[in-house]
């Protein structure tokens, strides 16, 4: 199985995702540049964090027009596994591959800190190794992470089980104090209808080693590896 990390102009967590896959998960991984027309033979695509095109205009608004995004959309359409982290999440919402939008944080400041998220749906390729309600500790680092979707869209998303992660306290309680950016219903991550495309605002790739403070992010990557391996066996 092969991981591909998309590099847009201004991506800056591309190497963090790359090193996690290569050095911690010990899986094959390659960079795919924004101007390429194909994603090659990759089985998992990661859209990393950063400031694509400086976040000028609106986070992710320009990157979604990159040539590679057509290939990513086709891959997602065929059921391919796509994970958008932070700015990658913003690109996926701008590209229409995920519902909703990410606004400026309600307090208007960039915020870098450890948070807790609770797994709300563990039936996805990216969450199947986690238990439902599991609380994961990982960092956020963003200025535009305030998730929003209109009520009717949220209703449908809830019904389809598309809310994947919520900000909670250490014990797993959804509280406003645990919400770092004002996201509606404390939403930290969502998926598309089919569940193969996931976006998450916190950084699981920064929570993959004990020496960095938490290994809780690994479960997302281990889930997808486990999922793809089980398919290979079949």
């Amino acid at each position, binding site marked *: 199985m092969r991981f591909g990390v998309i590099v847009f102009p201004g991506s*800056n967590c591309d190497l963090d995702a790359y090193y996690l896959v290569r*050095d911690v998960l010990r899986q094959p991984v390659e960079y795919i*540049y924004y101007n390429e027309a194909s994603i090659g033979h990759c089985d998992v695509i990661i859209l990393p*964090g950063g*400031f694509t095109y400086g976040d000028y205009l609106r986070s992710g608004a320009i990157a979604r027009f990159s040539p590679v995004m057509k290939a990513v959309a086709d891959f997602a359409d065929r059921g391919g596994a796509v994970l958008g982290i932070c700015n990658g999440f913003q690109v996926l919402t701008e590209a229409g591959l995920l519902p909703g939008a990410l606004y400026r944080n309600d307090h208007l400041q960039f915020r870098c800190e450890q948070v807790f998220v609770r797994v709300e749906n563990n039936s996805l390729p990216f969450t199947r190794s986690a238990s439902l309600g599991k609380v994961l500790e990982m960092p956020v*680092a963003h200025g535009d992470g305030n998730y929003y979707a209109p009520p009717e869209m949220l209703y449908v998303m809830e019904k389809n089980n598309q809310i994947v992660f919520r900000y909670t306290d250490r014990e797993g309680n959804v509280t406003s104090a645990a919400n770092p950016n004002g996201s509606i219903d404390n939403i930290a991550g969502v998926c598309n209808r089919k569940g193969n495309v996931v976006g998450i605002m916190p950084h699981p*790739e920064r929570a993959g080693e004990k020496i960095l403070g938490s290994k809780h992010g690994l479960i997302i990557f281990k889930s997808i590896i486990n999922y793809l391996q089980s398919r290979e066996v079949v």
Partner: protein
Amino acid sequence: MAEQKIWRELGLTDREYEMIVEQIGREPNEIEINMYSVMWSEHCSYKHSLSSLELFPTTGKRVIQGPGENAGVVDIGDGWAAVFKIESHNHPSAVEPYQGAATGIGGILRDIFTMGAQPVAFLNSLRFGNLDSARGRYLFDGVVAGIGGYGNCVGIPTVGGEIYFEPCYGGNPLVNAMCVGVMPSERLVLGKACGVGNLVVLVGARTGRDGIHGVTFASEELSEESEEKRPAVQVGDPFMGKLLMDATLEVIEKKLVSGVQDLGGAGLTCALTETASRAGTGIEIELERVPLREEGMHPFEILTSESQERMLLIIEPENLEAVEQVFQRWELQLAVLGKVTADGRIVARHQGKIVAEVPAASVAGGAPVYNPESVEPDYYRLLADFDPLNLTAPENYDEILLELLSAPDVASKEWVWRRYDYMVRTSTLQGPGGDAAVIRLRETGKALAMCTDGNGRHTYLDPYRGGMMAVAEATRNLSCTGAEPIGITDCLNFGNPEKPEIYWQFRRVVEGMAAACYALDVPVVGGNVSFYNEVEGEAIYPTPVVGAVGLLEDPNKHCGMGLRRKEDLLLLLGPQEISLGGSQYLKTCCGQVAGSLADLDLEVEKNLQALLRSLINEGIISSAHDLSDGGLAVALAESCLSGDLGAEVNLPHGANPLLDLFGEGPSRVLVSLDRNKMERFDQLANRAKVDFYEIGVVKGSALIISHGGDIIMKLKLSVLKKAYGEVFSCIME
């Protein structure tokens, strides 16, 4: 005739103008005067500081490149080198805090990747006036936002820094930015225009009218008219900065360039004259080949614009196509301006005519070196005679500690650093808030520790001792993580050096710093001098800031300041000589900046730092925290809060608990350790000839301090946390 002397308006003296005429053998034209004016400004020429900077040790077994290049380079083993530098962006930040700070970050970033190094961390050192004025809060908030705005976007973590608030910085804040990078040593590229016939290429952003005469602005005092100098402030584009960094590092890695220089202060003029003079060559360029942002720019504007995110590359002609390909991948603009010549002259043509022709060595290195007059200021002895022990001793020590913890100088700066991405690149083992930050190096399996330190109050009261203490504290902070100091970079922020009292401060500080560098065996590999930090004739405190870098052989063994285990013993290492003179207590609780500082014995300091490193390397101690502002009481509170554990302490000695709790002195460190390791600790401390005192034990969830059998302080962690942690959100939100 006076109206014709445009050099005066551009900051040159009549004598300096005469020197220019002597050096080029004729009257310079207006464009040439502009070029000389920016390059002979204090900011670029160091004309008032050079004779003192020679006091610093700048060589050593690890030094690959000392001062004079874009950044210092130090060997860190395994064929790798650390590259670092600190620089000021004070004046721009005083008039436009967001862009002033942001371009300070962009500028120091370019200094590092220009050498071929991958930047891995930012640090900073900031000074503001009190936050009770709207202007003070505006400057503070704007600078913090600007640092985050640039640093977060380029994806280099901001891992450390320090902030102080004193009225003297109210109109003239200090924004000192430091960047640390790493590279394989053989990749080092210098800012030299080598090879006659090589191409001189400009890459990155277009050139506009921003930042014209920014360096001249930086080389004069601030006044009410400074607001009008807002056009001298540049505007940053971090997105462009990130692309330029990645592309430049790629062409260096592929060995496609023979020289690289960033365009910062004094723009193209500086880059052309410095690269040529370092190589002993000349350069010829066509000014209309410079990609411009606006029409009708005059040649002098093109030559002195400080538009950001631009780099000058020196390329062998056969490599041009390969270089173009790299820059095109990121849709970056590349322009061949001209070529390297043999005659040592910078020749600029515009529309077919030569508009400037000057000797590179004269513009870049011909400025006079001054030995200014030095006079000890009256305040010095007056304030040193002040005896703080004559003040009425307070009754309630709980209140003093809470007052100190909630003083902006001391309080947690989390409100600031959570606005910086301090963990991107997933290498931050210890981020902001500790004694020093620690960054792992994937390539060598080792780690670098880094910090910035400087206490203007101390250097004001005693420039010599304060200068020594800045170096000692920075290196001590590295040693508290277990790292061996390998080099420092310094940013020297002072008033107007043409005033004898200011020059006296400068000279004494440099002498003190140099003495400490020699004694602690740590070279100065680069830095920056910022003079004219005055508003309406009132100078800031003399403020040297030391940026220090250390090497940790084993990243897994780094030590932090937080208490780790209940029942650990608490020990105080170092001498007992402490003073309330110049202390945080005196400032915060008594409103006084006066008194004499405790003595610093550099031999003791050296032994203490070596001991700390062996204790950490052998895994003897659980935590280590330097005693700094607020003395033992504040250090205890910080170690308790950081580890979320309480402590019970018996004051070690003495008749005066106020002095013991809040007195300050160098070379003192609070450590905690498992009592089973006491025997080995004892051996190592005795061998290193370092005094230590067992003062208490890690216990409970409160800080309890006794003196002579009586409890004199008892504060729950939750109370300490509230005082320490909520200051900035209360003031700023």
